[in-house]
């Protein structure tokens, strides 16, 4: 469904992605794990058209993907960004309306709105509340609901667990599975390697702009190198904090 060939991204002199290639099949959850600064957000933002790349190609549903952000959204790819970036000055409902900005199928929008309220009942309760006053977990739910409002086929999730309490992280990952069961393909980027691997079909390890390992997630999770680098004692502590 999504195929990236040899993608390279520079920020001035910083070479953030050094020839990344990857593949996401329809219906899958694919995770990319990597520590802070590995280039995960750069990769996600390149797909979304927020970061420009000079080298490499991205194909989506067999065709070359546009480089313009609004056309990318229109073609069925949405990003739920790192740090959520919900519109704190707008109400919950207005945020959701922004999610469906490019759509005009009123019936479809209403249907999706109801589905999102089923998925996140708290958003229905907070419909008229200004989004900036939501808690961190609620903001993450809003960001995901807003993304779903574009009725995407492929959802890019950038560190959805960032800054959330462990219990909430479990809830969010349960919801990711549920969204996947709705037929949405998911590309998930995480530092929380254990969680990301445990729900994924396939996974990649990104280190300093290079894919260093890939494989079925249930195999990677048992891999010694990964255990040491990402699931080790230090990281387990980090996860359980």
């Amino acid at each position, binding site marked *: 469904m999504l195929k990236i060939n040899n993608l390279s991204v520079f920020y001035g002199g910083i070479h953030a992605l050094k020839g990344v290639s990857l593949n996401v099949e329809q219906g899958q959850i694919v995770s990319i794990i990597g520590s802070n600064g590995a280039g995960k957000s750069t990769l996600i933002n390149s797909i*979304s*058209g*927020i970061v420009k790349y000079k080298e490499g190609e991205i194909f989506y549903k067999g065709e070359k993907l546009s480089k313009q*952000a*609004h056309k990318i*959204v*229109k073609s069925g790819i*949405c*990003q739920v*960004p790192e*740090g959520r*970036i*919900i*519109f*704190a*000055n*707008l109400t919950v409902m*207005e945020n959701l*309306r*922004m*999610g469906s*900005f*490019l759509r005009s199928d009123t019936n479809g929008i209403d249907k999706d709105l109801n589905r999102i309220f089923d998925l996140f009942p708290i958003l229905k309760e907070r419909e008229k509340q200004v989004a900036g006053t939501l808690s961190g977990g609620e903001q993450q739910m809003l960001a995901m609901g*807003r993304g779903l409002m*574009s009725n995407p086929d492929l959802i890019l999730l950038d560190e959805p667990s960032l800054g959330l309490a462990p219990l909430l992280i479990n809830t969010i990952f349960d919801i990711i599975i549920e969204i996947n069961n709705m037929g949405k393909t998911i590309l998930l980027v995480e530092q929380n390697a254990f969680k990301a691997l445990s729900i994924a079909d396939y996974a990649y390890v990104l280190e300093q702009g290079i894919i260093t390992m890939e494989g079925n997630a249930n195999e990677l999770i048992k891999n010694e190198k990964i255990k040491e680098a990402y699931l080790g004692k230090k990281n387990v502590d980090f996860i359980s904090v």
Partner: protein
Amino acid sequence: MSELFLQQIINGLSIGSVYALMAVGYSLVYSIMNFSNFAHGGVIMIGAYIGYFSLTFLKVPFFIAFVLSAFGSGILAVVMEKIVYRPLRKRNAPFLYFIISAMGASIFLENVVIASPIGPTFRSYPTVFSSEPIMLGSVALGRIDLLMFVISAISLMVLVYIIEKTKIGLSIRATSYSIKGSTLMGVNVDKVIFIIFVLGGLLAGLAGMLFGMRYTVYPQIGNITTKSFIAAVFGGLGSLPGAVIGSVLLGLIETMVSGYLSSQYRDLIAFALLILVLVVKPTGLMGKTTEDKA
């Protein structure tokens, strides 16, 4: 209440409402692009001239002159955005570059008019309304003052409607919070910026013509926007309600100072208040706080 007081309130509301027409143009641009568009004064000046020549040269009806001013200024604002700011935006230039370019554009427009056959002379609009005021008891309502208030109030209500109730307005508000966020929702930010320059420009044209009618037209008339800039800062840069409230307050303060002290103190006090606001509450009455701007 004394008559003078009532009279000054009416004068203050009418001048304040025109400040508001200009101040919202500043605020719209600031809310999304985070810089003060000092070229706005030039756009207002051109609007004042378009109105003047529409009435004297084209001899169109008064209402048509307003429409021409508004559209002329709207187009000019968009063209300036394309020529001056867009190249800066495309290479992510620092905000200082925007402000300097805006000032340059303003000086350029002023001098184009001075160098042209129009020249530096002061020109009076032809009389459209009788100068005889409408009397409400013993309070005099100038016809042009009334027109200023009515046109400004209606335009501002339309603007508020667009911003608060339409999808375009929603995308403007979202973009003002986060350009990245709204881009990810599929908003074409170039289009949003185009729209805010159209809206600001249309209102600038109306304001220019109203000012020209009330006073005179001359190449430096755009300097009056300094006042609306003060008003926008009062209310909080980037906030539309703030811009309107700040403008009306400034109009009232100015006319009160003129009425009870002396008109010589008017600008002194206006600028003193600006400095005071910047020192005590830099975000103004309703301005967005810095952490709002991610």
